[in-house]
């Protein structure tokens, strides 16, 4: 009898830990929703949920790319700069129509992604420093291209930013579609498996004949492209190209969303559902603090606490 309890107790704890690791973020989101429903006036309205979703959509899109990069044991600090670059380029080429300008944006983003990927895969620079160089230079380039915020009065761009299908804004649809797509790629494609293998053990992946460099480069390009999509959507929503402040600190928000969502920074594992939930968690937290008009000092301290708590709950089992 005693033996039985002894044996089951640690197992239950293990199960709890595992459960927290997998579903902790969702629990956090649920908790925030419940708390808000009680304490925040006008919270349970369709309009409010729409607002939160629209605001979090660009973060989610960037975080998807970031999750892939983190899955390869990398990190991409240049995503904010790519968003700014996307804003500049959209503004510059919008004169030729929305589609052509989007193509040019894609070219620029792919260029940044290639540069990141090449630095990481071929030169062997640590991701954090390689992408730091592009983070500084990329925003500079955005400002060189478009020295100041420019209002954009293109109707198709505007409808991209604020249009909807059956009341669901395009932004949300796009973010959802991309999340599903990325989740599918991670789970179902050769590329997804290869990415995880590279993140888990790069030497082993190399010796197993995986196209390590190609996968790395594609991952950084995809990350940059997703950041560019987020940049274009944010620009469309703002109806202005703003190379100065668009995407500021986005890299940190995205990394936070990914990590809080249960994807370890050590690579080899990617949790897309968690990443989306992580972004939503941070969004709801910020919204709560803003709606209750707390000062910035509080906001930052609260974010710090929630991040640590979330990551603590999702942490891997200790050694002992």
């Amino acid at each position: 009898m005693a033996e039985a309890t002894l044996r089951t107790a640690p197992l239950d704890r293990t199960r709890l830990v595992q459960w927290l690791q997998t579903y902790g973020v969702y629990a956090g989101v649920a908790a925030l929703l419940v708390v808000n429903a009680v304490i925040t006036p006008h919270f349970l309205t369709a309009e409010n949920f729409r607002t939160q979703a629209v605001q979090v959509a660009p973060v989610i899109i960037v975080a998807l790319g970031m999750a892939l990069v983190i899955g390869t044991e990398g990190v991409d600090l240049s995503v904010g700069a790519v968003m700014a670059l996307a804003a500049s380029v959209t503004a510059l080429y919008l004169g030729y129509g929305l589609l052509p300008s989007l193509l040019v944006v894609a070219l620029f983003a792919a260029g940044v992604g290639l540069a990141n990927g090449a630095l990481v895969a071929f030169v062997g620079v640590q991701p954090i420093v390689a992408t730091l160089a592009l983070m500084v230079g990329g925003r500079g380039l955005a400002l060189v291209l478009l020295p100041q915020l420019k209002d954009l009065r293109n109707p198709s761009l505007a409808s991209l930013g604020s249009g909807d299908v059956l009341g669901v804004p395009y932004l949300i649809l796009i973010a959802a579609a991309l999340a599903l797509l990325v989740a599918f790629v991670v789970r179902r494609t050769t590329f997804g498996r290869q990415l995880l293998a590279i993140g888990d053990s790069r030497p082993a992946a190399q010796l197993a004949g995986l196209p390590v460099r190609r996968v790395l480069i594609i991952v950084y390009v995809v990350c940059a492209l997703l950041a560019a999509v987020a940049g274009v959507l944010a620009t469309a929503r703002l109806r202005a190209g703003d190379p100065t402040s668009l995407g500021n600190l986005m890299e940190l928000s995205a990394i936070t969303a990914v990590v809080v969502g249960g994807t370890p920074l050590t690579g080899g594992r990617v949790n897309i559902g968690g990443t989306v939930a992580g972004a939503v968690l941070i969004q709801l937290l910020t919204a709560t603090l803003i709606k209750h008009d707390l000062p910035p000092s509080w906001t930052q301290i609260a974010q710090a606490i929630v991040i640590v708590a979330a990551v603590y709950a999702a942490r891997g089992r200790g050694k002992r």
Partner: protein
Amino acid sequence: MTTASIEPPQDAHPVGSARSERLSALVQQHGASAVLLIVSMVASFSFDSFATGDNISNMATSSAFLAIVALGMTFVIVTGGIDLSVGSLFALGGVLAAWGSRHGTLVALLLPLAVCGLIGVVNGLLVARSRLAPFIVTLAAMLGARGLMLALTDEGADTYLIGKGSFLAELGQGSTLGLANPVWITLGLFVGGAVVLRRTRFGQHVYAVGGNEDAAALMGAPVARTKILVYALSGLLAGLAGALNAAWLASGVTILGSGMELEAISAVVIGGTLLTGGLGYVSGSLVGVLLLKVIQNVINQIGSLDSSYQQVVSGAFLAVVVIAQTWLGRRRQLM
């Protein structure tokens, strides 16, 4: 044809690789110094006002604070960690020093050290004991420390001043033997840092933890304690740098320190410390800081660059330096 050129077979490989090993170790350690030397030389030929006493002492003084932060960062990075909270701690340290200066110099100096050191300890505990990723822990600390700083200053509205002529102001603004006091302090800290890292048990543990954490634990190195200590040290030094900076500026400026963590990390990496840990040099970090400052100075010397071009140039420069570093470092890996 190959056999003809190799030395006695028994020792051929070890000796050959040892020689190039040492050479590339040298390059890795001093590559940044070489780049610094070249850039400085080119700059002094191109700009009359570069190699002047004034300019050099300005650069030295303004490098001092970043250098102190980079010193702490070096320890953290050698253990394979990272500390993103230093920028916020720098600002917090400055505000605390200025606030504390009303209660005397001792409070002004100890308060920032205590608070920032404590935040460092918390970082260290979360990293070492709870095994959370340093990146995310210190990111949270970065937010938290900035929040604390804002709370202390009525959301940044209050700037506390340090009285003129106080010991603290003298410490920050005075100079000794022609060099500003903060520069002396920085030099002292770096000498101390170098001794601690290369010549003490704690330093050995720092390298060991970064080189192979599991092995270090099995060899009896106190892994957790070492990690806690490096984060504490990093926090402490960031706070000290902030306090000294506040003394220099005679006020607890609230808008300082954003982006400083990335500057410090770049300086450390440029200085030849591996981000993966286990290998690094305190002196390299100092050179890295100087290199960043010299580049900034050169951009100012050119004078006509648009602010956005300046950023492009800094980014490109950073890329070139890390590519050079990595190539040199990789030769080393292959040997």
